[in-house]
């Protein structure tokens, strides 16, 4: 492999990864579960689900944090996966990562626990208004709430703990955020600003309000009786996505730098593409143009033709609309090969990890290439004639793949595709 790519830019490789999902902690546990077709989706026990239309999720219940909140657990998950990725990469020194941090993070907002605590502190009896909360905010000590719910706090704490360099960037492009974080890291290395970058996507925002917000948009599956069978991308009877939690971290590095320090190369980030959609806040342009442009931009950036792609890690959310639109895009880009190229959805097992999905699924794509094994799309019982994909139904399949593409399409029309190549 040469140190520079088809455009003379530094080749960007991955030298370490870390994952936590509802399937477990660490990439070994995750890979074993993912390739044996296990589901991490379960009935929610974190909070009472009385009255809710959707009562299941892929929450991570095996990681404890004091004063649980979305940013607190998101930060803790990020710490776990960064630790794993840095250990594998063996880069820098403890607390001294030699590059910047790019973090895909869910939006941060004070939650009901804190709001109710302030209301109680206000001493208001009959009716509570924001005036009462404002009064309570300035009395007593609520500074820890203030700091916890700053948007900058997760990135700042991670940067301080792992000693990343420069200003940490926390990004949100909804369900494409993980892809955007990878792209920011790749671009920084290609610009020659840094030899390495730490990329992490994390999301632990399953709480009553966020679940209900998605539910009100009719985006979630309501197949509550059988949570492990609820996420069924590409099946005719798919009825929505499953909110899930997780995190994924990647150590990106220029090939020259990785080679010089004798690092083991996990895989190559060959290209990234993005395109925004101006059609609708939650729906894709019906002609699929932005999705098509996004995949084509990624392939062009990687210097590859569609024929060279051997596997697609689908966005595959299991909503009726997404899976159909993704097929529209794939069939336009891949033409006659569209229905024979394997395209599977990790979300059938881990659910939709939202902000973290792009990072987690890029890592699963790296593992797919590395192990020569395609993870399945589980719960594929009823093929959808309108989406005639080879989704690697239900059982993992051995396959040697050199180049793959990982898709992420977000609310707000933000789309990112990442092209991953096998090491060596």
């Amino acid at each position, binding site marked *: 492999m040469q140190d520079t790519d088809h455009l003379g830019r530094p080749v960007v490789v991955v030298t370490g990864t870390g994952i936590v999902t509802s399937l477990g902690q660490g990439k070994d546990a995750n890979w074993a579960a993912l390739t044996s077709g296990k589901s991490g989706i379960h009935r929610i026990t974190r*909070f*009472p*689900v*009385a*009255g*809710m239309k959707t009562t299941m999720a892929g929450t991570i219940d095996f990681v404890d944090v004091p004063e649980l909140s979305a940013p607190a657990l998101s930060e803790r998950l990020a710490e776990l996966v960064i630790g794993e990725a840095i250990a594998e990469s063996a880069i820098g020194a403890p607390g001294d990562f030699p590059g910047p941090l790019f973090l895909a993070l869910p*939006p*941060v*907002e*004070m939650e009901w626990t804190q*709001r*109710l605590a*302030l*209301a109680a502190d206000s001493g208001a009896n*009959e*009716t*509570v*208004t*924001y*005036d009462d909360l*404002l009064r309570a*905010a*300035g009395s007593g000590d*609520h*500074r820890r*709430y*203030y*700091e916890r*719910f*700053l*948007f*900058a706090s997760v*990135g*700042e704490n991670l940067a*301080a703990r792992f000693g990343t360099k420069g*200003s940490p*960037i926390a*990004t*949100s*492009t909804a369900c494409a955020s993980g892809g955007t974080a990878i792209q*920011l890291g790749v*671009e920084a290395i290609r*610009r020659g600003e840094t030899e390495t970058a730490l990329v992490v996507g994390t999301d632990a925002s399953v709480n*009553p309000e966020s679940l209900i*917000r*998605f*539910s*009100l948009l009719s985006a979630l599956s309501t197949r509550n009786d059988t949570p492990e069978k609820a996420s069924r991308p590409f099946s005719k009877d798919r009825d929505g996505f499953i909110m899930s939690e997780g995190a994924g971290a990647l150590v990106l590095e220029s090939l020259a730098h990785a080679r010089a320090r004798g690092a083991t190369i996990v895989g190559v980030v060959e290209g990234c593409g*993005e*395109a*925004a*959609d*101006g059609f*609708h*806040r939650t729906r894709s342009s019906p002609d699929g143009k932005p999705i098509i442009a996004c995949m084509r931009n990624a392939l062009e950036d990687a210097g590859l033709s569609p024929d060279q792609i051997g596997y697609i890690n689908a966005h595959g959310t299991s909503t009726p609309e997404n899976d159909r639109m993704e097929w529209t895009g794939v069939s336009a880009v891949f033409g006659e090969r569209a229905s024979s190229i394997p395209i599977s959805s990790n979300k059938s097992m881990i659910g939709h990890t939202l902000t973290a999905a792009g990072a987690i699924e890029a890592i699963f794509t790296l593992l797919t290439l590395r192990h020569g094994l395609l993870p399945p799309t589980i719960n594929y019982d009823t093929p959808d004639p309108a989406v005639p994909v080879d989704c690697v139904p239900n059982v993992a399949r051995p396959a040697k793949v050199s180049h793959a593409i990982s898709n992420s399409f*977000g*609310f*707000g*029309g*933000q789309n990112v595709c990442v092209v991953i190549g096998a090491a060596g």
Partner: protein
Amino acid sequence: MPHDRDAVITGIGLISCLGEGVDAHWSALNNFAPVTDDTSFPGFPLHPMAELALDKHISKREQRQMEPWQRFGTYAAGAALEAAGVKGNTDLLSQMHMIVAAGGGERDYAADAAILSGLPKAADPDAYLNEHLLSDLRPTLFLAQLSNLLAGNISLVHGVVGSSRTFMGEEASGADAVRIACARIGAGQGDLFLVGGSYNAQRPDVLLHYEMGRLLWKQPFAGVWDRQAAGGGMLLGSLGCFLVVESRAHAAARGATALARIASVASDRCRRGPGEATANARKQLAALDGTYDAASAAVISGASGAPAATAEEKEFLTDLGLPARAGASAFGHSLEPAFIANIALAAMAVSHGTLFPPLDSAEKPMNTPLRDALVTGWGHWRGEALAHVTTP
């Protein structure tokens, strides 16, 4: 030496309590009178948004899908595109990259209050919360709250679809948005960018947040530096600011006029131990050695008024000795777009060749021509940034 890949500003969309557009701001800054709202949130003064003719840049139908934070941003983005001569130009808009610095959107305050009032008395508080969230939350409000949906609205309303990224993290997100756009232009990773953000200070939840941090100024108006003697504090301000930033070659090829050049942007962080922010700023300043003449340079400061950071920055600026103006004295502190708005002030000042008069008793007049502006962006909590804005 001019270079094809210099990052130049070809359009500014700026709205705040001082009005709309660069001319209105320039005139207000030269005849400064503070605009505050002391009554909407008694005891919590702030700088309110000026009256806007929203229809000019956002259709009525789309306005209804948004709350003020998104309206301010989408409006300012439209104004920037118009100023740069890009608005409605589908070819250019489809290649335009967008980086938005964003927090989150407004909540339904009445729904929150009803739940906070009813829940403690409910027989089953958890079921009460679920039931009321399900029945009281408007489905579309979620889309008015998500951080990335300001960018989503700009794609939808103005057709900016080359790419769309949103950065979060208070002041630093604005600084990094400009930094990344300029770095990408410099490296040929894009030619045409829309960079900006907006802030709605007229919200009980943001006042609540900074009140929990004990960071708000609750006395009659005083400039950022003048407040320090009385303990300091932030006066938040509603604001929207977007910049069209492009490579010099791209601007020239389409016949666009460059107002100013962003010669450099640096950003860093520290734990804010004693002197750490100053050390970051000194490093950033040292990197600019020899790129500007102190005799024709001034500082547009991003000081927020928050006591610790403002006091330390004041000392740093006193050592530096250049005339300085704190943008937050003029239009309040606006977190995410604050740095971007101060770049806009810097661009206006260098394009006029003069600095506007002091906004505060601590600021010195500058009667000599201005050529270079250094824009500081010390976050009220974290993040230190420095930009150098100069003539094109």
